């Protein structure tokens, strides 16, 4: 192998023992899990908001952000279920650049995966214990899910991973909802196949074990827009797109038909300020048609303390070092507006 073996890492069981979830934390997660499942299976008509920074670059600012979500959640609790995003690993288009807290617990220092693994658990754990939120992360490396499996309430499989066999298999073995994004090319059948794979039982190898998954009936769709052959972004959150997805679901016979609309990425063409307009437009489509209203369960919004984005060396507190995000003032206003419209 053409690689250097730097350091052996902890086993998931060890790191869970070192940084354990308290009984109170476990109770919070169980309550959050139940609420999220109720949204996805239609027994609750609340709107789910998966909201937070594009990447969790530093613990202090992320904790500050999530703590601010708590009182907002209390005010809108009859209408909205907030699932904060703590995205600790980031896929990069060319593989270069900041790969998330897992790789770089200090974003301006060299990668340190040993410390990164501890840092991401500590951050997710702090969020759970201090704010009661069990959060969402991207499942970029399926092998690593076990390090956080007792803390997370939601994971997404990204547009670049959704066709990957191991992601689909591991998704089928998770006990929390998994959102499958449409691939960057926009082919919905790829995403539907992924959801089908995730909802089925499989035998496969996971962390050096022969395992059998139970199938995850809460695997569902996330529409994130797409990029055509010429590199141009196109949205897929419009009324017609949502109808189209409802048709796909109807033919498929999949359980718990559900869709989360990602308001950023190719849906906004990374024009992050458009996220509010897109969110409201989706809510309008939901009111307009019962099928769409029943299918769309929530929204994904990239938001942080400061508007926009910066280069990672600039070190502005609470400003994204990856994709641009909506700042806190606009975020808070948007959540209240969405609660009004719901």
């Amino acid at each position, binding site marked *: 192998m053409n690689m250097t073996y730097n*350091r052996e890492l902890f086993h998931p069981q060890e790191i869970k023992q*070192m*940084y354990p979830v308290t009984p109170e934390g476990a109770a919070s997660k169980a309550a959050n899990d139940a609420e999220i499942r109720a949204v996805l299976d239609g027994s609750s008509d609340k709107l789910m908001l998966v909201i937070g920074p594009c990447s969790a670059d530093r613990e202090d600012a992320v904790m500050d952000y999530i703590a601010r979500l708590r009182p907002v959640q209390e005010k809108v609790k009859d209408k909205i279920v907030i699932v904060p995003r703590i995205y600790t690993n980031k896929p990069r288009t060319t593989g270069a650049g900041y790969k998330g807290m897992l790789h770089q617990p200090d974003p301006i220092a060299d990668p340190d995966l040993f410390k990164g693994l501890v840092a991401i658990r500590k951050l997710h754990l702090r969020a759970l214990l201090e704010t009661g939120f069990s959060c969402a992360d991207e499942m970029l490396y399926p092998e690593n899910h076990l390090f956080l499996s007792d803390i997370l309430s939601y994971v997404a499989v990204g547009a670049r991973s959704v066709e990957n066999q191991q992601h689909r298999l591991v998704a089928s073995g998770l006990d929390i909802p998994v959102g499958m994004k449409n691939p960057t090319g926009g082919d919905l059948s790829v995403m539907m196949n992924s959801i089908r794979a995730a909802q089925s039982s499989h035998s496969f190898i996971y962390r050096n074990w022969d395992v059998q998954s139970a199938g995850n009936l809460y695997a569902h769709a996330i529409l994130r827009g797409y990029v055509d052959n010429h590199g141009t972004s196109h949205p897929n959150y419009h009324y017609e797109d949502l109808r189209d997805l409802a048709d796909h679901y109807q033919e498929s016979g999949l359980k718990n038909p559900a869709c989360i609309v990602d308001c950023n990425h190719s849906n906004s063409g990374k024009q992050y300020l458009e996220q509010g307009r897109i969110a409201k437009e989706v809510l309008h489509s939901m009111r307009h048609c019962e099928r769409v209203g029943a299918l769309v369960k929530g929204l994904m919004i990239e938001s942080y303390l400061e508007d926009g984005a910066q280069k990672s060396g600039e070190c502005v507190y609470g400003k994204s070092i990856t994709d641009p995000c909506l700042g806190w003032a606009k975020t808070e206003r948007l959540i209240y507006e969405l609660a009004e419209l719901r």
Partner: protein
Amino acid sequence: MNELEEARAQIATLDKEMAGLFVQRMQQVGKVISYKIAHGLPILDAGQEEKILARNLSYIQEPVLQEYYILFQRSVMDVSKAYQSRLMQGMKVAYCGIPGAFAHNAAKGLFPDAETLEFPDFESAYKACEEGGADVALLPIENSYAGDVGRVMDLSFAGSLFINRMAEVDVTQNLLAVPGATLGDIRKVVSHPQALAQCAGYIRDHRLEEMEYANTAMAAQYVAEMADKSVAAIASVETARLYGLEVLEAGINATHENTTRFAVFSKARNSASDAGADDHFILIFTVRNEAGALAKILNIIGAHGFNMSSLHSRPMTGQVWKHYFFAELEGDVHSPDGQDLLRQLSTVCDKLKMTGSYRSVSL
């Protein structure tokens, strides 16, 4: 604020006032003891105590509270007596050896005003501190030439004391004999095994017979009492003065950078109030009986970037083929990284003890 919170807030305010009054009271106690020392009065004055108690009780009206107030007042008096006793007797430093031993010199250097208590072996000095007979025990933990002082490590492993201070003492060994003796007379040398080891080259070159003694000062005392010109002791210059011996040859230890490190053991662990001041710490641990267990621990220490300045493996007394490890690390254990390290190691080690945190000083 609800009633509970309000009451707690009130208690917090009262505690603050009481803390201020406590400090003022103790300052006055300090003045009383100065007076008592100056006038040769004893600390305990039972009649006085009962008078104070009766007078103060009259300030309390509620009968139920009076009961508790007596308890309170008695413990105030106990605290005050403990403080007085400390002021009067000064600090007590336990060490192993007799006056003139390197440990004694080190004790005098570290605690010039304290009373030094001599003990015949490391164990009894350590015990004296554990049991409260001494404030601290000063024991050698390593010698740069002859290696570690394993017995003291064993005591740290089994005992309850902490190391809050570590001092390096330069050791120069000298050949001491009774007045009138010459180098040519000497056939036999007497000293502590460590000192003999430090001077092994000299002893070999001069074809001397070795005889071990509990410590260097005792060896000097023995030589003085024997009054035999063919017997010399290996010890410090101070020892020669103390026991009326002459220095036949100075600096006979093989390396002239011969340093003994003394650990200051005490019951209280240094808290992190001045975090960042400590730059070394000691971990004592045992590993699980499985392949790669020690490697895993070293891997974690390495991942945090703490340099391990030494790692000793010592057999556990009474357990065949079982060992514990004594590691000294460079860095601040009170830092977030240090705290993470401890948390992670405590999961992976069978047993883990943070035995000391200190800043190394030279005497």
